[in-house]
């Protein structure tokens, strides 16, 4: 794949993502639609033939609640299955993921019928909000999982393990330090020359100043998303100016290397950003699911008691 450091490693906008939701989901999709239709028909029939209409407290209404809760628990068990690999015999992770997606969606419909299209009291209203947000964040995650991995593949030419990004940033910065030290001499901790003989306008001083003030912070961690160097081209323009100064020797190669290191840092930052889109929704989805199960349990126990 051709890379273009000037454009952050992104080549054009044409890419063909490998879709998570594709024709392989057809069976699950059809099964979900069939079950949804069955639940709808049963609901409509019972609602039209029962005096007072369908209520969640009726026997069939409670069964809707049980089925809906079961679907939610099944969806929640995906997380447990990931943590307990010995449960592989319950089904492959792919199957569980498909069930998580489709049966989780179906649970919303079943719970909607269980409620008889009533919001209920404060607890039930909170449950509704939590359930809806859980489903919404799940759908968001599904969309993210559908497109973001392909975007990472295409935009990030040199993908690294997410957890290793700080380590790589430190290494990049050490390499950059070594490069600049080779051009400007050892760094004594002062950005401006402290030696009276040194010229603050000399190429070395200018490079050191620019590196310490702009480049080095950019190479660090966390990623400075507001740095001007995040814009492709800004660094190149500045380095071209420095390169044009009256250097005693050829510095083009070293400055090219410095620019490459900055490109790498920019790519790592982009990878971090996309990674957060890809997995950040779980920070909301999982806690909401936990709250949903706790509140749903409370709702079930109290409803069965009273």
């Amino acid at each position, binding site marked *: 794949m051709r890379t273009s450091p000037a454009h952050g490693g992104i080549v054009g906008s044409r890419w063909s993502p490998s879709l998570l939701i594709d024709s392989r989901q057809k069976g699950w999709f059809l099964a979900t639609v069939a079950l949804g239709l069955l639940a709808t028909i049963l609901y409509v029939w019972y609602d039209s033939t029962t005096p007072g209409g369908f209520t969640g407290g009726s026997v069939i209404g409670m069964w809707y609640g049980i089925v809906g809760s079961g679907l939610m628990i099944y969806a929640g068990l995906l997380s447990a299955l990931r943590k307990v690999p010995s449960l592989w015999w319950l089904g492959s992770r792919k199957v569980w993921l498909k069930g998580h997606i489709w049966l989780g969606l179906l649970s919303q419909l079943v719970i909607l019928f269980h409620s008889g299209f009533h919001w209920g009291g404060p607890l039930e209203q909170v449950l509704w909000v939590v359930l809806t947000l859980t489903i919404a964040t799940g759908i968001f995650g599904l969309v993210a999982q559908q497109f973001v991995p392909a975007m990472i593949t295409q935009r990030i030419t040199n993908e690294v393990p997410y957890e290793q990004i700080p380590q790589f940033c430190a290494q990049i910065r050490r390499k950059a330090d070594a490069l600049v030290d080779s051009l400007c001499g050892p760094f004594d901790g002062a950005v401006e020359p402290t030696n009276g003989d040194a010229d603050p306008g000399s190429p070395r001083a200018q490079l050191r100043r620019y590196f310490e003030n702009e480049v080095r912070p950019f190479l660090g961690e966390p990623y400075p998303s507001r740095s001007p160097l995040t814009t492709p081209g800004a660094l190149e323009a500045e380095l071209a100016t420095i390169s044009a100064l009256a250097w005693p020797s050829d510095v083009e190669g070293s400055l090219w290397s410095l620019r490459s290191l900055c490109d*790498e840092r920019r790519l790592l930052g982009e990878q971090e950003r996309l990674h957060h889109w890809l997995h950040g929704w779980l920070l909301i989805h999982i806690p909401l699911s936990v709250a949903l199960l706790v509140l749903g349990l409370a709702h079930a126990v109290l409803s069965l008691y009273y």
Partner: protein
Amino acid sequence: MLPSQRDLRSASEYPKSLSSWLELDYFRRPRRLRRLRRLVPWTVLLLSTGLIAALTWLPGNRRIYQADSVSTAHAIFNEDCEACHNASFGTAKRLLRGNNELRSVTDEACLRCHAGDAHHVRQVGQSACVKCHHEHRGRIAMARVEDGHCIACHTDLTRHTDATKPGDADRPFRDVTSFLGGRQPHPRFFLTDNPQDEGTIRFNHEAHMNPKGLLVAGSLERKQLRCTDCHQTDDAGRYMKPIRYQKHCRDCHPLNVRVFGTIDEIEAQEEADRFRAEPASHPADAGEGLDTVRAVLRDRFLQFAYQYPSVHAPRSRTEAESPIPGRSDPDSGSTTRSAADWAEQQLRENTRMLFDGPGGCRYCHRLAAPSRRNSEADPTPRFEPPRIASRWFPHSVFSHERHRSLDCRQCHAQATESRSTSDVLMPSIESCQKCHNGTPQGARTDCVECHAYHAPQETRDSPRDLAIEDFLRGQGVHAPAKTPRTPTGR
């Protein structure tokens, strides 16, 4: 792999060594995103569990578990679930046994405060109170149940009626599925097809509603009557109070009485004029009759006689020689009469005028059949009881107050043309359906808009001796068993 990690000098694509560019123990130091992903769910788990526990065990938070607030009448029980939910895990039992009749609120809880008798003596089976009366639906009237509860039986009454039991079997109930249209719409009113008025009072609505007005007794003025001059609603604004002679008829149809004979004393003459100005009394209720009228009148004559003895003192020769034509003089041959004798004579003359005269009782009342008349010894006539219906539609409820904006004739259209007592002036169902028409602009058409499931309130025996503390806790008297209502209840 990043290009900067490659060994440029070896011109190899591979790194110098894995450990030189990877932290092999990086998993021991998870980044913030992973740390949050581990921390937040546990925090939410603990917080939500703690919150639920606190709301459950701390008092005053029961409302969060309610699907909606209880009805207005039960608002005092909002925080006391056990006041009504007296069967723990009733819902769980309903689920396990698959029986919708099992409830956590039993009839006993309702009957502590409410006397809810059965709907009909011939109905098959009895349903639980909460089957129709659903709580926790906000500040609504629980009595306003959905049509489905009624239609469940009334769509096929044969199947839900025990024909072996006595009751109003002669009443032609028909299956109904809705008030308007549908497969089995509400039938025409029974009275429309069977107009029967058992009333015996002779009354002409047309004459009384004469737009030119009616002559007022004792004056030359004419008064134009309105419906509300005679028909007034009860305190609840629902039904019309009975027509009372004293209040509605006497002004125009006084039962005139007078002192017969010649009175010489001027003061007695003035008192006789006042006597004439006050009509005879009229039986006020069913317990009173003509005897009452006579007794009251006798008292008045006696008082008159005691007050003015001259009226029964020795009569002048002229008077003695000129008795009242056609009347036997009980004191003939005697020149003196006691006050009682005088009063009795006056009473006879006046009752003859009242009971047999054209402006007396017969003007409105119908004579009883000969078999019911008195013997020759007691010539006092007997009249049929009025039998004015107090409720024409006993199977429905109605509020005249709610319909006060309407001209009475909009519903009782025949009233201005009716001349006969036998005319039934009740509206037809078509009249009701002009407003209760099932459109968004129309009035309601649900069953309970006109019909009540239970017996009228006045026939129920609700507990009325509760202490305030017991009432607030919903702990009334021991719940009586539901009893089928007798057909005479409505």
